[in-house]
């Protein structure tokens, strides 16, 4: 079974890479014959990814999010799934290249470094942890979508400001649509991050007998929560529009990814192993 898991781990980045290339073709030339199979290719990759997560969960008898690289794989899956949902809803293929590029990167890192701990840490047992993990996954996927739309917003914004009407101008959706997705992603992510923090705090309070709130991971998540909190409050107040929202979303996402890739390793209880 583990050989099958390893085999799928090799296939998954390749699947996302094919998706990135096909969506790249769709971005540059929407009428090209290779643009048509982009969505089917993504759907096949997502099915394979789902199967992988199910196999890992069944084989190791635990949630497939115990190590940081397993979390990255789940994040790649969630981001790609959110994108597929968006594409079906708004019939907009031009953002696929950018979102799937991130999904590919996450899966590549995951496949390259993943190890599957056989034992489940005691901290990861219970419904509160399940809620915590699921909420974190949704919030990170939402932040990813928000950041990608923020990046695209800034690219188009600068094209329009500099009076350039090239490929980015002709292919990207309107600034308003991208600002709206960026804001909604941040709002959804903030709500789920808050939920994850409450569920995690509840579990940590019950299980840990030291000052867990001084842990670097906890402090970094509080920083992320504050950044996105400021962003969401400005969106709701209607004071900020467009570029500032995009910059703040990217800053929040930068801290999120940096926290995930670095602070987890120095955290006392988010290393999971």
């Amino acid at each position, binding site marked *: 079974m583990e050989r099958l898991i390893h085999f799928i781990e090799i296939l998954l980045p390749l699947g996302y890479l094919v998706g990135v290339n096909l969506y790249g073709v769709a971005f540059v030339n929407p009428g090209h014959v290779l643009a048509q199979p982009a969505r089917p290719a993504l759907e096949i990759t997502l099915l394979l990814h789902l199967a992988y997560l199910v196999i890992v969960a069944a084989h190791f008898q635990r949630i497939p999010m115990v190590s940081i690289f397993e979390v990255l794989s789940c994040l790649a899956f969630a981001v790609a799934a959110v994108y597929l949902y968006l594409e079906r809803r708004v019939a907009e293929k031009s953002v696929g290249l950018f979102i799937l590029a991130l999904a590919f990167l996450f899966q590549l890192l995951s496949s390259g470094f993943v190890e599957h701990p056989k034992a489940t840490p005691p901290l990861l047992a219970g419904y509160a942890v399940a809620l915590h993990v699921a909420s974190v996954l949704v919030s990170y996927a939402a932040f990813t979508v928000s950041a990608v739309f923020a990046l695209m917003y800034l690219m*188009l914004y600068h094209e*329009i*400001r500099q*009076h350039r*009407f090239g490929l980015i*101008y002709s292919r990207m*959706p*309107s*600034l*308003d*649509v991208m600002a709206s997705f960026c804001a909604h992603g941040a709002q959804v992510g903030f709500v789920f991050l808050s939920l994850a923090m409450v569920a995690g705090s509840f579990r940590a309070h019950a299980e840990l007998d030291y000052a867990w709130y001084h842990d670097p991971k906890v402090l970094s998540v509080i920083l992320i929560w504050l950044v996105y909190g400021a962003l969401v409050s400005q969106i709701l107040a*209607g*004071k*900020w*529009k*467009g*570029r*500032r929202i995009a910059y703040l979303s990217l800053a929040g996402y930068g801290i999120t990814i940096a926290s995930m890739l670095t602070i987890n390793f120095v955290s006392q209880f988010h290393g999971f192993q």
Partner: protein
Amino acid sequence: MPPAHWYPHCNRAAVRHLFRVSAGLDSMMVGEPQILGQLKDAYRIYCESGEGHPVFHKLFQIAFRCGKRVRTETGLGQGEISVASAAVNLALKIFGCLSDNTAFLVGAGDGELVARYLVDRKIRRLLIANRTEERAAVLAQKLSGAVVPWDSLHSALAEADVVLLHRGSTYLLTASRRRLMSACSGRILFLIDLSVLRNCDPNCARHDNVFLYNPDDLQVGRPQPGPPPRRDREGRGHRRGDGRRVLAGARSLQVDGLIAGIMKKAEEIRSREVEKHRRRFEDEHWKDLDALTRGIVRKILADPMTSLRAWHGEDGADPLRIEAVKELFHLGANAEGDDET
């Protein structure tokens, strides 16, 4: 248009200018299709004036054909080529759907087309302000807009997402840049300065949420600096080929007119001189004399006429030579084909 804005073109330069205009190469937006319609209107007015001349008829017909040919056989007519459509497409790129936005037209002059495009794109509200309120009211009725009194510009500005500025809007944006900036805080403002002499202070564009554009910025179809792209070379090639044909045709008509003028003048001189001696001849001799003198004149003119007809070739009918012959025979402006093209 005041005469100060006129500029003359003669001969080859006139034909080249007409062809450039018809192809849209002389337009503010390169390849703009509207200019061909305007040229047709100008030609219709010219025809209705009753001053029509064969050279001009032929010239305009070929210019229209050339304009169409340049657009269909080159890439010049593709993309966003009209100021109005480019402005509206840009508004759509910024705001997505316009059904939640308000447009404000300041000056009811040239902005009607852009405003109409915005209305076609289902803009939520169109506000129109003009110094002469009656003009604003007429336009507002035509486009289902609302009239804003000239002294309420700033309150209208606070509501607008798309602002179209025309001649006479200077007051709005030089006197109140700060107010403009405060009006758009927290929202995006798309300013289109459509007048030739800019109304809008470029510093307005420094604001994060202000997109300031003028027709020059909207020139999506304009070729980049450097070597001319293929489509422009092709366009120029079409114009040159057609232009040469028109010039050759026009000069052929000039030469025909010249020949007719010389023949007419010679016949007038012959008949006048012969008529002086009419009484000295019997009727039967008179007919012979008339035929004889006609023959002499025809023979005298045979060689010059043959040479003139040889000028029908493409490059043969040099305008200088035509002028020299006119002077030689004292053919003034009355000679056919004497008009400048």
